C-alpha cells in the first residue's frame, strides 16, 4: 500500500505535472493553471489529470489520463486506494491502461487489486482484465510507461499479456 502525508500528496501532484511538461506534454485544463488542486470528497482525495503528448498537429488525437483516489488513513495520512492511468490513442485507435480497483469483489474474482487494460482496437477488448506485470508504482511510473508506449509509435500487442478473464 502506498501511503503519504498531506504535504507529500500536494508535492506529488506538482511532481507529476512537472514531469509531464519536462517531456514536452501539454497539460490540459484545469491543471494548466498556476494553482492546481486535489479534489476532496469526504474522506477521499481525487486526482484527475489529462495531458496530450507532444506530436504537433496530431497531438490532440492522443491523451494520457492519470486518475487516482486516495483515502484518509489516520491523522495526516492518506493511502492510495484506486488508480487508473490510461493512454487513449485515437489516431491509432487503441487504448492501454493500468488500473487498481478498490473493490473486494474484484480481488475475489481475479486475485489481484491491480490489472492492465489493453484494447488493440479501441472499444473492442479481447480480454476484460490482463495481469499487471509489474504493478504500477504510482502516477509517475504510470506516466512513464504510457508515454514510453506512445513513443514507440506502435499499437500494443495485447496478445503478449496474460489474460485474467
Amino acid at each position: 500500500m502506498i501511503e503519504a502525508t498531506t504535504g507529500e500528496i500536494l508535492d506529488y501532484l506538482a511532481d507529476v505535472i512537472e514531469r509531464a511538461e519536462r517531456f514536452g506534454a501539454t497539460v490540459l485544463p484545469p491543471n494548466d493553471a498556476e494553482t492546481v488542486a486535489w479534489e476532496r470528497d469526504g474522506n477521499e482525495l481525487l486526482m484527475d489529470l489529462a495531458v496530450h503528448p507532444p506530436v504537433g498537429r496530431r497531438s490532440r488525437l492522443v491523451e494520457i489520463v492519470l486518475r487516482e483516489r486516495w483515502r484518509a488513513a489516520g491523522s495526516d495520512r492518506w493511502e492510495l486506494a484506486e488508480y487508473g492511468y490510461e493512454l487513449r490513442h485515437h489516431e491509432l485507435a487503441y487504448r492501454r491502461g493500468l488500473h487498481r480497483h478498490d473493490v473486494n469483489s474484484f480481488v475475489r474474482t481475479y486475485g489481484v487489486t491491480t490489472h492492465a487494460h489493453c484494447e488493440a482496437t479501441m472499444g473492442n477488448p479481447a480480454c476484460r482484465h490482463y495481469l499487471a506485470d509489474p504493478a504500477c508504482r504510482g502516477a509517475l511510473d504510470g506516466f512513464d510507461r504510457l508515454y514510453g508506449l506512445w513513443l514507440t509509435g506502435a499499437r500494443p500487442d495485447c496478445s503478449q499479456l496474460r489474460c485474467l478473464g
Partner: protein
Amino acid sequence: MDQLYYTPREVAAILRISDDAVLDLIHRGELPALRVSPRLIRIPVAGFDAWREGRKPRRRRVVIRTASNRIAIGEGESLPEGAQTLRR
C-alpha cells in the same frame, strides 16, 4: 511520421559529446529520458528541445478543494458483480 525520440547516440552526435556524457546527463536527471526496456533508453525530441533551450516547467502551487465532479477508474470496463456500485 515526425521523429518522436532520439537515442543516446543521436543526442551525443547532436551535442558533440560522448555517449557516456549523455548517459551521465540522464543519470543525473538533467536530460529527460525514459528507459523503455532494460537495455533501451529513449530521449523524447520535445523534452530534448526544451532542455536544450533551457525551458523549464513552472512548479505548480497545489491546494485541496471540494470535489466538483466524479471520476471513473476504468471507464467502459466490465467489472465483477457488485463492483459497479462502488466505482466512482
